[in-house]
């Protein structure tokens, strides 16, 4: 997510009220454009989540300019509004299809794969043109994103030709006859549109997706995207209902909570999907090969937790801070009051000894809208000091996460920069 802070949902903006989850946020979405192709295009554009990467904090929708820090420099997403000069207003259908399928820009240049054409290449031409029709129906915004700041030699796009040879397969989606119809629909949604792998699949040495570890979890833009294969430290022990609820709403009461980039995916994409499509994604995730991830299971964390020696002084400071800043919503025992503030040990972010998501959620808070309403946790980056956030993260990690957390103020400073 680069340097972007989590965006506040406009539809829900006026309703920042008591409680974490509000049912039925006020405000309608813009009325659906007339015509089947437009309606379908909107649905597909939501499923493909154009918004999260192409809408800057405090910028206009789809006008681009979001910064992505990569190993090779900083990239900025492009303007995909129908502005003639700075957007896609002048793009022909074929040019648009070529960009989506081949990762080639209007002037024939290779596109950096932060744009997930490795996924979109699987889309049908009809679907791509429906997305285009929807984008063309949106307000044109004149805005030119900053130029990319790639380091040498990666500022030479010709290198991308080699990258594509290694990491890119220009091929359409084919249903797998061994899978159910629902699982195939789910595969199309997850692979071709939702590009789940862009975050959840680790990268190889050339920053291509390591298909041998598909969906086993990875780190993107400072956030851990956890293991979503059906293994015991993945989603193996989640029920279908829980998975569906998580995808659609962003939380399962007293268990799981989506924060960070996943909260954006729920807000900008998944909450708009039909019940049937959510079920299809669940069905597809069940067919994945189980793999080992990075985060101890709840059981392992519970056992480890008992063995941790607590420094009384640090625990006291942590407890005081926790009571003051966290306990009112999460309650003193960390079991939560239901709704989106849930039992801490169930969260991968809390059990993950790297602590990256825990620290980032404290820094950035959560502002997520799911199909069932809005969830909000304040961003503490300017409400607490680096020392205090380290103290809190250590307290939570030791008390609930089952690991001997030793974060320092310097770790918090580093996490702020992401």
């Amino acid at each position: 997510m680069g340097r972007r802070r989590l965006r506040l949902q406009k539809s829900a903006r006026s309703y920042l009220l008591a409680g974490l989850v509000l049912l039925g946020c006020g405000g309608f979405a813009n009325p659906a454009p007339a015509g089947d192709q437009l309606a379908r295009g909107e649905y597909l554009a939501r499923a493909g989540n154009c918004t999260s990467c192409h809408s800057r904090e405090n910028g206009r929708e789809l006008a681009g300019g979001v910064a992505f820090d990569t190993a090779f420099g900083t990239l900025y997403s492009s303007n995909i509004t129908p502005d003639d000069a700075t957007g896609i207003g002048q793009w022909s259908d074929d040019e648009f299809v070529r960009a989506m399928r081949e990762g080639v820009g209007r002037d024939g240049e290779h596109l950096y794969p932060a744009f997930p054409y490795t996924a979109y290449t699987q889309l049908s031409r009809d679907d791509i043109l429906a997305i285009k029709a929807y984008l063309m129906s949106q307000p044109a915004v004149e805005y030119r994103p900053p130029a990319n700041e790639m380091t040498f030699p990666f500022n030479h796009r010709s290198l991308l030709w080699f990258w594509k040879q290694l990491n890119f397969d220009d091929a359409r989606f084919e249903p797998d006859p061994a899978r159910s119809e629902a699982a195939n629909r789910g595969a199309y949604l997850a692979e071709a549109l939702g590009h789940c792998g862009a975050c959840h699949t680790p990268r190889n040495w050339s920053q291509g997706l390591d298909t041998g570890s598909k969906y086993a979890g990875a780190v993107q833009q400072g956030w851990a995207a956890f293991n979503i294969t059906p293994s015991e430290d993945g989603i193996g022990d989640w029920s279908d209902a829980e998975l569906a609820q998580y995808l659609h709403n962003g939380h399962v009461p007293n268990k799981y909570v989506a924060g960070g980039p996943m909260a954006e995916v729920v807000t900008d994409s998944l909450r708009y999907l039909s019940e049937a499509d959510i079920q299809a994604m669940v069905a597809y995730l069940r067919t994945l090969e189980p793999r080992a991830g990075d985060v101890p299971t709840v059981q392992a964390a519970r056992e480890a937790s008992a063995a941790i020696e607590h420094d009384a002084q640090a625990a006291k400071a942590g407890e005081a801070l926790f009571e003051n800043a966290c306990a009112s919503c999460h309650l003193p025992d960390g079991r939560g009051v239901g709704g989106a503030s849930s039992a801490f040990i169930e969260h991968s972010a809390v059990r993950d000894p790297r602590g990256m998501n825990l620290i980032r959620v404290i820094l950035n808070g959560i502002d997520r809208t799911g199909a069932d309403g809005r969830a909000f946790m304040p961003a503490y980056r300017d409400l607490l000091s680096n020392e205090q956030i380290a103290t809190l993260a250590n307290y939570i990690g030791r008390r609930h996460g089952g690991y001997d957390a030793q974060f320092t103020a310097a770790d918090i400073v580093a996490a702020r920069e992401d």
Partner: protein
Amino acid sequence: MAAPVMSRRAVLQGLSGLLIGFSLADPSRALAATVVRSGEPVDDKPLASDRIDAWLAITEDNRVIVYSGKVELGTGVETALRQIVADALDVDFDTTSIIQGDTALTPDQGYTAGSKTIQIGGMQLCRAARSARQLLLRNASERLSVPIARLETRQGHVHVDGNGQPALTYSQLVDTQVFDAVVEAGDEQPNPPRFVGRSVARVDIPDKIFGRFAYVQDLRVPGMWHARVIRPPTTGAVAVARLEDVDTTSIPEGVELVRIGDFLAVAAPSEWQAIRAAAALRVQWEAKYPLPDMDDLHDALQAANADEREIEARGDAERALSEHDNILEATYRWPFQAHDSIGPSCAIADVKNDRATIWSGTQGVYPLRASIADLLGMALESVRVIYAEASGCYGHNGADDAAGDAALISQSLGRPVRVQWSRADEHGWAPKGPAMVMALRGAVNAEGRVAAWAFRNWTPSHLTRPSSDAGARNLLAGNLARASVAQAPPVGGDRNAPVNYVFGQYRVSVHWISVEQSFLRCSALRTLGAIQNTFANESFMDELAARAKRDPVAFRLDHLKDPRAKTVIERAADRSEWIARVSPLREVESAGEGQRGRGIAFACYENEFAYVAAVAEVEVSDREGIRVRRVTVAHDCGQIVNPNGLENQIEGNVLQAIGRTLKEEVRFDPMGVTSLEWGAYPLLTFVEIPEVDIVLVDRPHEPPVGAGEATSAVIPAAIVNAVFDATGRRLRTVPLRWRGES
């Protein structure tokens, strides 16, 4: 339901005794003042400010009622005003009490704002009280047939020939028509002050500490419903969203909907019911983007179509600059800032066919009455606005707008209505302190003195308060119900644009930006434009000192003639153990583990009132950014009424201004404000506060001038000057950022 009652304030203030008062010939009328807070009608209470009985009354048990149009905003003026009256009338402090801000009872003293409560309001009361004392003496002289020269007053009594036994109490002297009199000018302080100059404990604090004080948020009236306003999806200086449709199936049972133009509200018997109904209501708005990109804010302000008006000039600064080949230019930027009252605005309105009563935390009951009368289509005299203290406000926050909301809803429903703004209402919709751009050009000569100085700024108006001129236009409810735009006379942006330094070649001008080009709805926030302009002026003074390779303290003193100005700078420098230096002490690329530095700034508020100098000591590190470690303030506001209260105000100014300098910035996207809660609009926290050391310069023979905001003006520049001293980096955009762009 156990609800605090409206009359509690009056009872607590000991107003239960019979009021006989100056010229209140009919005691039954005076008695009405004991039920003031209940909103019962009061007729014929004299209000004209040239009459003593507009300001003062004396009860049968010889207590003094003070009627003040200036109100307690949490700054301690209720105590200070009583100190002034007690001395001027020569009564015991404990026998005084105050009735504040009520269009049926108190004279019109405009707004409680601009640090003018003591300076102007206090002096009005002082004159009234001194005139009253003269009247009492004259009356006693007649009554006792003793010449005035043989009479004296002592603590509410008149004595003859210095006799220890009082001949008469004040209350015995005010039961005739004789006291129906006008305020006279002049008259010296009768006796040495007994209360002014002392740290009398604030009278309002104990009730607040024991949870017995009723803020406007705590008032309840019988039959009252709770309402919430549903705001459009966009926020801007001009409303651009239109209410298209409300899904009536989304209105819960027992909840009433109010819709007038684009003004939309729900009301219910219980508060939680109203909150839930507001959240659940499905509304369709038609909106367009009201705002440009936040990154373009300051460029857009400078590009606004705004006339330039010259404020002050000496010599020909432009020509002097054109003749100089080494001129310094710098542009300073200030963001939109919010009022950040901890308690969101609240009001209660009870609008009946023939009269309306409004309880509000407004800073001006009379101007608000005028705007509400227009909003409701009622005659001015049919509307009564009663002040009830709210959470601390630092200017024109949402208090007036909430009152407008409540009035409109109450009129529509025909029952009393309480409107409590949400946190997002307050952060998103209360008027903002304006963003501004200040551009300076200057030069120093070979003698190390300023050869020329040219200041220009670009500013929206700092004043869109309610008024009789603006009527309903300056209430949000009016904007929404009638699709109107606020009226904004050019006020505030020029405050402290001029400097008190004496420069031969000097020009100051202001570009006034219209409401339509102001991005967000702006109005008064503590200091109006003085904090922005002083930030620029005192930063630039430091830049010129550095250019001249002069010590910043000596450089300032060299350009000042006014001894009071020099004194505060010298006292601040002395107390902080300032060591003469040429800033920067060092120039570093990276601040590493920490670099310390000091900076000074000076201002004379509005160029003629309080003198303030501040020395800030900062520590800059790459990890923690900028931390203010210590602030020394030297402060001269003439005669000091209450030293402890004054220090409280100065401390508050220092801390709040540090927050404004380092943290506070209203953020917005093209739809409107996005910083709608404290995480996105952070305040200074306890772990960030510095030591504060205050030097009070008391001048008992100078008139007391305002101290409520002057100190805020100097803090930002003191901090950036200290950062420059520590690191050699000159920050010109607030909030200051050490990492990233600056």
